[in-house]
């Protein structure tokens, strides 16, 4: 992918690496999408230009197609079973690892957020909150089951219990207004609960979405559990919501018409649809174990209880 070298880019790298200023020509990053643990370019070969507030080109982002999405769903479906089977403790460690990796790249993310328009302060707050949110959900991995499970005192001689199980493959359209926090806030609870996800990143702030994919990729998250694509909601929302192998859909965008169409399409396979369009991700309400339970199914199991000891007359 050809890239225009701008002053801005040069500066970024220098800052990002914390290296003293030189006249060295910087190496630019190609922003690709993240599917099945790999970083392909979009199969369509298309791109869109991401510019900073002064109109300088920041990057040519992949303009993902429905086929990229399809490939991502295939990867997510394949990854779902093994991920759901991982011990909750193990999932917690992996989420924690994502937090660690993000923390280590804090400066890069702050820079990328500033490039797409954030102030330094808000960029720093967003990255810090994102790290903390990952740690928050890392801690939930082996606890939400206890919160949302029950042993049910049925009237017959049966042991009866209900536990949450992951819904399956989740598709998400992330919030447009944040670069990394909105993405982390939908991905973390979904994978904490054992699901796999395909997320469409914020179109105008996609830089850190791709960087976040790199963080995921270096955090022991199995390929396919998290898939991140970049592109336009306008083009993808219909295909995303009609795909028959997706079990659940998160909408954190802001277009009511899109959302209505998504709901209509979801009915074709009785997908669960979650409306996160009003959630303020920076607020207290931006995190809760209930975001995990949104993508859990309750499974109830019955088994007879043999009653020998106390029932000499019945046996």
């Amino acid at each position, binding site marked *: 992918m050809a890239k225009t070298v701008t002053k801005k880019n040069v500066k970024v790298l220098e800052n990002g690496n914390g290296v003293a200023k030189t006249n060295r020509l910087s190496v630019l990053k190609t922003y690709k999408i993240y599917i099945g643990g790999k970083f392909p370019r979009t199969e369509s070969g298309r791109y869109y230009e991401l510019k900073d507030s002064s109109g300088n080109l920041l990057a040519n982002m992949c303009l993902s197609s429905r086929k990229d999405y399809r490939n991502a769903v295939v990867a997510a479906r394949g990854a779902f079973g093994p991920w759901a089977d991982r011990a909750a403790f193990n999932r917690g460690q992996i989420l924690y690892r994502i937090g660690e990796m993000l923390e280590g790249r804090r400066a890069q993310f702050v820079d990328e957020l500033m490039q797409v328009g954030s102030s330094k302060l808000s960029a720093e707050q967003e990255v810090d909150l994102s790290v903390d949110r990952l740690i928050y959900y890392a801690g939930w991995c082996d606890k939400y089951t206890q*919160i949302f499970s*029950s042993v*049910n*005192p*049925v*009237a*017959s001689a*049966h042991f*009866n219990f*209900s536990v949450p*199980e992951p*819904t*399956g493959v989740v598709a998400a359209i992330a919030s447009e207004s944040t670069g990394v926090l909105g993405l982390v806030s939908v991905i973390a609870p979904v994978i904490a609960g054992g699901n796999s996800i395909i997320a469409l990143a914020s179109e105008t702030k996609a830089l850190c979405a791709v960087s976040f994919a790199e963080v995921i990729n270096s955090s022991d998250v199995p390929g396919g559990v998290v898939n991140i694509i970049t592109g336009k909601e306008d083009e993808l929302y219909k295909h995303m919501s009609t795909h028959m192998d997706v*079990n659940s859909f998160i909408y954190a965008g802001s277009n*009511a018409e899109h*959302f*209505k*169409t998504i*709901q*209509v399409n*979801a*009915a*074709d*396979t*009785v997908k*669960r649809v979650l409306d996160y369009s009003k959630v303020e991700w920076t607020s207290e309400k931006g995190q*809760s174990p*209930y975001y995990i339970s949104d993508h859990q*199914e*309750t*499974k*109830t*199991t*019955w*088994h*007879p209880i043999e009653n020998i000891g106390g029932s000499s007359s019945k046996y």
Partner: protein
Amino acid sequence: MAKKKQVEVDLNSDWGYSPAPESKGHIKIKPQYDQFIGGKFVKPSNGKYFDTINPANNEKLSSIALGSAKDVDKAVRAARKAYSEVWSKLSGKERGKYIFRIARLIQERAREFSVIESLDGGKTIRESRDVDVPLAANHFFYYAGWADKLEYAFPNKKPTSLGVAGQIIPWNFPLLMAAWKIAPALAAGNTVVLKPAETTSLTALKLAELIKDSGLPDGVVNIVTGFGDTGAAIVNHPDVNKVAFTGSTGVGKIIQRAIAGTNKKCTLELGGKAANIIFEDAPINQAVEGIVNGIYFNQGHVCCAGSRLFVQESVYEEVIRKLKHRMNTLIVGDPMDKNTDIGAINSKEQLDTINKYIKIGQQEGAEFYQPACKLPKKGNWCPPTLFTNVSQSSRITQEEIFGPVLAVQTFRTVDEVIAKANNTPYGLSAGIWTDKGSKIFNMTTKMRAGVVWANTYNKFDPTSPFGGYKESGFGREGGLQGLSAYLNLN
């Protein structure tokens, strides 16, 4: 050595069972029933009525009001008024006491409700007496106790009621489904507009009489009657805050589409095609009983029926032989006879559907078995039916038949049966039969289904959440989990 012969049960021997009809003497069914709106029985605005018939003889039992969109609007207004003026202001404790009253009144009139349920729906008196009606009362009793304890159910949340709940229920468990819908809705502080299925409106309307007796404030529960368009009017009414539906997956999808773009909360309890899996180390005799209970209970009109049987090849012969033997002992006929095991098919239309699938099964080349049984001349009947030698790609294994028709496949390994069992768009229930505990937990975890019965089948309890994965719907009914469908969690 005695000569080898098949063990058979001859139902025509000198010791068959004499007729044992349940008495209908103390039951009164009025010639005409109106809708229950705002605490009063109200004539339909279009003046029209439709017949409800007894499927065991196709004779008319009564006339039922044909509710229109106008009536639905009236009912929703009554529910809204009751919600904002009375019910939402009442304390949880007081709400609970009303619901307890309803539970008690059902218990007091249990036999009457059982008889009417069997007359109107065709299910056996044994089932309506021993299953439907007691469970319905228990359901009210269970949720009554939740009304003043909601804040304990959802940690760190403040639960609040939604408003008016529109509820549409099917014909397979008419009173029980009404209880599953109304009880949690009221406990959570909502008011209700409920529509029973057109073939089985009577017990819902008897429930309305009982609710009136209970002194429940006018308009808290409203019951409108009619066909699909009446239901659609509930779903589409702008002042309904929540839609709860139990029925076919096809209609569920229509409802999900219809409420797109609105803020209506929705729960759907839809179809199923459950796998019932028999391993070679199962307690075979009880497993056979579980197969029978899984598919022939309530004429197979059960969304969670174990309609796909998987038998491990090493015990296939034994299981099928015992199953056929057990099928021979099933008594098909008059639902009002206390000895009847399989009653009348709920409607002529449903019987046609079942027969269509039986024909398809035969055309697909599956081996077909029905015990010889004498069927009454009048009415809608289908003997217990078994198809062996079917494959995963047969239509009778893929599509929900909703009748007493079982399709049997064999399997060899655990992995194979898990893959086949989950190979369906549905995910409501599953059955596992094995004596090995570690295998049970592996299997119950791997089944993509909302209810898994291990070494048992078709068990229900008010405390036990029920509902599906995938195209079997979303949301749960029963238990603590069943409350969240009727609450905002702030």
